[in-house]
């Protein structure tokens, strides 16, 4: 077999992408994802409405009775649940990376990206960055609603720290949803699967109500649920109270989830046919 001329004219540096290249590629893809929002503003509805609807729902439907149990009435419940909402949204909105990714695969645009000389990571990082921006938007909406229903912002530093911690946790969870987006066939499956993960984690946590009254076996779960620790840490940062333990556990979870899910997502992304 006469193998044809394999003239390797390129030097090794041609194969490696410099950091500036990665930033350029990621930037171009971030721009693309932002343009999506401009073309299709409806895609922001969930980020806009979810904080409004959930806040009103929980504060006015459950607020009175849970607040009574907490000993602070509805106003007390507002102070309790708003930090939890920040935690909840970090999880719920993270799903978007998975469904968006799945759509990209099915529309064929992902094949275009994968046939271009860019690092595969750029596509993933761009998606995560834009979702984090969406989350920031949703958090801003949430805080406006929160203040309107009576939430007191004690110190801005604590609020920013809570939002930052949520973003850290969200970016780790996004790798899990990215994996689902790569592995599952379509956006609907990603959403359905996401729901199965989200629901028990969100409600089996201290987001909406204190865990003290829950049965022991459930408490064992909620105590280790990263959404509980995230919600409790956010509470401590925004309203006051102990922070350190919950903060470290949440960061630990974030690091652990990222360490496992990110390489796996990138691997699956690379080898997907």
């Amino acid at each position, binding site marked *: 077999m006469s*193998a*044809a*001329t*394999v003239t390797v004219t*390129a030097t090794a540096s041609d194969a490696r992408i410099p950091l500036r*290249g990665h930033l*350029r590629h990621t930037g171009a893809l971030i721009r693309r994802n932002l343009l999506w929002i401009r*073309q299709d503003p409806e895609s922001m509805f969930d980020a806009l409405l979810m904080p409004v609807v959930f806040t009103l729902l929980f504060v006015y439907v459950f607020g009175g009775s849970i607040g009574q149990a907490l000993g602070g009435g509805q106003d007390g419940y507002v102070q309790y649940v708003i930090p939890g909402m920040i935690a909840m949204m970090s999880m719920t909105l993270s799903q978007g990376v998975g469904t968006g990714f799945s759509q990209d695969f099915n529309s064929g645009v992902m*094949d275009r990206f994968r046939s271009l000389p860019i690092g595969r990571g750029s596509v993933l990082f761009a998606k995560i960055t834009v979702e984090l921006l969406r989350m920031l938007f949703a958090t801003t909406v949430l805080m406006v609603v929160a203040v309107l229903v009576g939430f007191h912002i004690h110190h801005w530093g604590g609020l920013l720290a809570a939002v930052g911690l949520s973003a850290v946790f969200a970016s780790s969870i996004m790798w899990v949803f990215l994996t689902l987006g790569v592995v599952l066939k379509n956006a609907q499956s990603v959403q359905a699967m996401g729901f199965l993960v989200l629901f028990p984690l969100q409600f089996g946590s201290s987001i909406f109500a204190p865990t003290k009254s829950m049965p022991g076996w459930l408490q064992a779960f909620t105590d280790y649920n990263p959404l509980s620790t995230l919600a409790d840490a956010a509470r401590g940062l925004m309203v006051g109270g102990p922070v350190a333990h919950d903060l470290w556990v949440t960061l630990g979870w974030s690091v652990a989830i990222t360490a496992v899910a990110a390489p796996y997502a990138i691997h699956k992304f690379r080898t997907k046919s």
Partner: protein
Amino acid sequence: MTRIDKNSSGGDNAVTVRGMVKHYGETKALDGVDLDVREGTVMGVLGPNGAGKTTLVRILSTLLSPDAGQATVAGYDVLRQPRQLRRVIGLTGQYASVDEKLPGWENLYMIGRLLDLPRKDARARADELLERFSLTDAAKRPASTYSGGMRRRLDLAASMIGRPQVLFLDEPTTGLDPRTRNEVWDEVKAMVGEGVTVLLTTQYMEEAEQLASELTVVDRGKVIAGGGIEELKAKVGGRTLRVRPADPAQLRPLAAALDELGITGLATTTVDTDSGAVLVPILSDEQLTAVVSAVTARGITLSSITTELPSLDEVFLSLTGHRASAPQDTVPADTREEVAV
């Protein structure tokens, strides 16, 4: 297994494929494919749905890893040098598409940036290619609002941004109406004029004839024939004459007269009563002349006489003895063996 002629003596192959194998479970998408595309030429890969054409293009554009075999594109190994390879190829196909939600201009600009063009150059290149593919008026509209032909032109423009050395066109006109198809063909011809090497997959003999200088016919993962277009046409029976008598009553006598000529090479003379014409497969211009003189000798008046290229199905019938298969066809392993000519 038929191996196509190797024109590689000069070593100027833009694409070389050797023993390429890809299986999906039981299905052999590629079953030992060899292929050479010389620099600056257009290679047509002709085959029905499910023949393995798309799998081949996906491997050559690094979207898929083969199970066995090797391939180089513009001198780069598909497995060992994917990044360098991606820099010198363009891809347009059924799947590698533009972003529907983005305007045409934004699509091209984005790809320019992903190919490391400085902002200014990426902008200029987007403008230039929109102009060239007559899309300037639609530059600001989302690609989802484009017609089929515009979409395909944008796809082509997108694959040209990096000034590729090798262009893969995977069924570039499937699903387009004839007029739009001609537009796309013209664009492809213009690109070839600029010296790009093209590997084109198609289901249409006509498209292959329009664009390609050489042809590789694939079926069920194997190369079953290859060579120059003329060579191959001769092999599969060249053209079909469609002879239509002015008086429909003359149809049978005409068919009988042409049958007597005995020039039918591979297929036989058939009567198409729907269109009122006799179809005669011919191999040469001499045979065309013979048909005309036979008609004149019988004093039959004709309303029209046209030549047609063989359809893919006819090509397959003459090369393999079976009709082009659809991908859903589950072919038992034993009949699959027959395909290996």
